[in-house]
């Protein structure tokens, strides 16, 4: 695209006619090519949040531990002793659908930059992935590529990937999701914001040189649906260079620590235009940029190309002129590029110069703040909007073997344990360095949440990321709530108290009423969950138009949560000890609605059971106290596959059998034996404790008014669960074989 050639270039660039008119009003003239390119990107969904900003206002962002909230590159919460934890989750869905390895790798690179842009050293990465069923060759290719790409970037840069989640569902077949979350540690007094200040100060670009990467990318990425075969709309693939980023990271942290920077901002979507525009807007200043001073990777790039290039591994800083030599010297020491490309002005305009000659001039406010915001027109769908496919027979045969019977609870258990959504994800997380940094006290699969030691403030943090799109599709309000609750449950199991939450809203085309309804309800559910859990939202990201001619993805709000705990040494794992008693704690009300079993039976439908966040939260408070007191030997929350799968996972972890009788529970809660075995829903935690501790535990629950039932004990080498004539009996070894079977399917 060379700007300004065609009849109505603004349409090709994704701007509506009325948006274009708005631009001409704001400028009092027609924009030239450079200006139009800049507007088209900053007024894209991706940068302007045209369809989501109004909704995001509902999310609670206040909290006494909040150090930085939405609006900065990443959010941050205080963890005491002058330190803060910064974190954010971001999507890289479309690039990963085009080229999974590079798409996922650059996704990690991008979220790392958001975190060190506020002066935090990245200490952990988590990933949240969604693909079609692994029976599809394309899905296997995307899964393999994305996992390898995440590992490539995180491993090379020396940040451990400590957790994540993967779901395989048909609606992601043509639109995979790759979300990455980064967690960083900062000294509170050394943190930095992105607001540009001080007319006369210099604008310095650092890191990689600028090429024709992702020219026009952002607007096309986020404002158009990825039509099969429509190459013109495809972004050009960007190659990640973790080596470049590791030098840039160390360099930026040294510059900060030496107090050489006024403000700092990563270059992400829409490149210089977006970063400079947002820095100027936040600081209420103007910026002049001379594109001739930008180090280029390719010859004769046009000014508009330099302004919108999305080349990776670049940062933008504002510095005082007197500091330039020191800054340049530091960059050279780290073998990372740097160049002063412009200066801060008091004009309130973003001016683009080409070797001193002005080629663009727009008011910062017009570019950054004046993009029209749209109201959604939500309409609740009449029924289940997605396909329903029976796969249980197949699954049972695969996991449970020949004699399998899709009606037999033991065979169903094996089928569920072997289901791609529930089976062990070791194949993936073994490709991630989970130990670098010497903080990882709980690695993947050793506890419900990853636990990182923070000696700097003499405590530990726990991190989890969750979001079951299938359940959100059944009921966006309850489903989104459950995503937050699942995180909180995972944190409670390691004794952590939630401090803050980040989220990525992955949805289809919001201009379609049914998708708008999903988005609207999900944000409301998320907001109510945060209020009930008293957890502030400190940041996030929105990815819309995840939709093709085959329809929208499941509505997928991915929630990342960070919590704190006093002592990592006290954290129980998933493995109980032989002879322990097993208790089910919390208001868990199992239902097959939206469950993995309902999916495999092809019986998915609208609706989930309602949830009381407050009642769940009270139970989590008790669990947290018990875990911290060291009175439980293992803790695991009830999630995909229901109570039977949760118990099986604990038995597998311990390598010993369990003997459980749910009849009392069936009496108490009602529902069929099958519902009690495989039904899902929030609010259930299985705790294991030695005889004596178990009694105490039940008494404490009693006095705290939290439901707690003793359901059995740890013994033998079989998983035996009695549930109103629907009894399960599977050898632990057979269960483990099924649960470990994912690798064979890739």
């Amino acid at each position: 695209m060379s700007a300004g050639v065609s009849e109505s270039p603004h349409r090709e660039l994704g701007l509506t006619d009325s948006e274009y008119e708005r631009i001409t009003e704001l400028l009092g003239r027609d924009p030239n090519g450079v200006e139009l390119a800049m507007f088209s990107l900053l007024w894209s969904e991706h940068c302007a949040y045209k369809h989501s900003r109004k909704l995001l206002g509902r999310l609670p962002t206040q909290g006494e531990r909040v150090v930085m909230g939405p609006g900065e590159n990443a959010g941050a919460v205080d963890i005491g002793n002058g330190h803060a934890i910064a974190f954010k989750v971001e999507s890289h869905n479309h690039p990963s659908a085009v080229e999974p390895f590079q798409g996922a790798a650059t996704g990690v690179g991008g979220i790392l930059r958001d975190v060190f842009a506020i002066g935090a050293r990245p200490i952990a990465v988590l990933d949240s992935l969604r693909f079609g069923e692994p029976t599809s060759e394309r899905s296997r290719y995307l899964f393999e590529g994305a996992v390898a790409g995440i590992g490539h970037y995180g491993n090379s840069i020396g940040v451990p990937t400590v957790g994540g989640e993967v779901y395989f569902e048909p609606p992601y077949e043509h639109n995979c999701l790759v979300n990455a979350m980064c967690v960083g540690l900062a000294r509170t007094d050394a943190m930095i914001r992105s607001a540009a200040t001080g007319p006369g100060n210099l604008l310095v670009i650092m890191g990689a040189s600028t090429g024709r990467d992702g020219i026009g990318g952002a607007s096309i990425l986020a404002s158009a649906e990825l039509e099969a075969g429509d190459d013109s709309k495809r972004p050009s693939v960007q190659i990640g260079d973790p080596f470049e980023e590791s030098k840039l990271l160390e360099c930026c942290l040294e510059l900060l620590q030496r107090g050489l920077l006024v403000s700092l901002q990563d270059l992400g979507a829409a490149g210089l235009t977006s970063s400079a525009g947002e820095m100027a807007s936040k600081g209420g200043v103007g910026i002049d940029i001379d594109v001739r001073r930008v180090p280029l990777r390719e010859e004769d790039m046009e000014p508009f190309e330099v302004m919108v290039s999305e080349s990776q591994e670049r940062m933008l800083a504002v510095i005082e002129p007197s500091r330039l030599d020191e800054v340049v010297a530091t960059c050279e020491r780290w073998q990372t590029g740097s160049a002063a490309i412009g200066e801060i002005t008091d004009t309130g305009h973003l001016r683009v110069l080409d070797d001193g000659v002005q080629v663009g001039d727009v008011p910062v406010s017009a570019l950054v703040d004046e993009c029209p915001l749209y109201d959604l027109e939500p309409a609740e769908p009449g029924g289940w909007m997605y396909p329903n496919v029976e796969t249980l027979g197949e699954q049972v045969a695969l996991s449970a073997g020949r004699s399998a019977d899709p009606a037999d609870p033991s065979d169903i258990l094996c089928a569920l344990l072997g289901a791609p959504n529930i089976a062990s994800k070791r194949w993936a997380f073994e490709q991630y360095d989970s130990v670098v940094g010497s903080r990882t006290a709980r690695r993947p699969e050793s506890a419900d949440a990853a636990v990182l030691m923070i000696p700097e403030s003499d405590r530990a943090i726990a991190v989890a990321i969750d979001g079951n799109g299938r359940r959100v599709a059944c009921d966006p309000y309850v489903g989104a709530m459950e995503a937050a609750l699942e995180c909180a449950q995972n944190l409670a199991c390691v004794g952590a108290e939630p401090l803050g939450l980040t989220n990525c809203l992955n949805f289809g085309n919001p201009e379609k009423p049914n998708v708008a309804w999903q988005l609207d309800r999900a944000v409301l559910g998320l907001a109510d969950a945060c209020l009930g859990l008293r957890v502030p939202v400190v940041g996030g990201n929105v990815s819309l138009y995840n939709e093709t001619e085959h329809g929208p993805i499941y509505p997928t709000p991915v929630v990342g949560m960070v919590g704190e705990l006093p002592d990592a040494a006290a954290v129980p794992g998933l493995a109980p000890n032989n002879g322990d008693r097993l208790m089910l704690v919390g208001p868990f009300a199992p239902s097959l609605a939206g469950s993995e079993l309902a999916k495999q039976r092809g019986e998915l439908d609208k609706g989930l059971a309602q949830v009381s966040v407050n009642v769940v939260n009270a139970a989590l408070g008790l669990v947290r106290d018990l875990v911290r007191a060291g009175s439980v030997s293992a803790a695991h929350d009830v999630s995909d596959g229901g109570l039977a799968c949760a118990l099986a996972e604990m038995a597998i972890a311990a390598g010993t059998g369990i003997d459980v009788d749910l009849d009392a529970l069936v009496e108490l809660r009602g529902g069929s034996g099958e519902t009690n075995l495989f039904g899902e829903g929030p609010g259930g935690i299985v705790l294991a404790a030695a005889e004596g501790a178990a009694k105490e535990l039940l008494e404490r629950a009693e006095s705290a008014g939290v439901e707690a039932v003793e359901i059995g004990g740890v013994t033998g080498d079989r998983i035996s669960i009695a549930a109103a004539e629907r009894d399960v009996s599977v050898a632990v070894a057979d269960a483990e074989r099924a649960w470990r079977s994912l690798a064979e399917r890739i």
Partner: protein
Amino acid sequence: MKAKVLIRPKEGILDPQGKAVERALPALGFEGVHDVRVGRLVELETDDPSKLDDLCEKLLANPLIEDFEVELVEK
């Protein structure tokens, strides 16, 4: 028949390896070397060379980011 497939990063696409090697060279005492690009070499035996382009596109090279060139080596 023996075939050599030369696979190289597409023009304009970042080549981190080439960049790193090029930056390191002067320090190793190799002046005057530039435009370094690092790609892959695949050598194979095939009964049916006509299929090679197809094979490259589908398996050996990633057409989104790599160009390839097939050289047949007569015996």
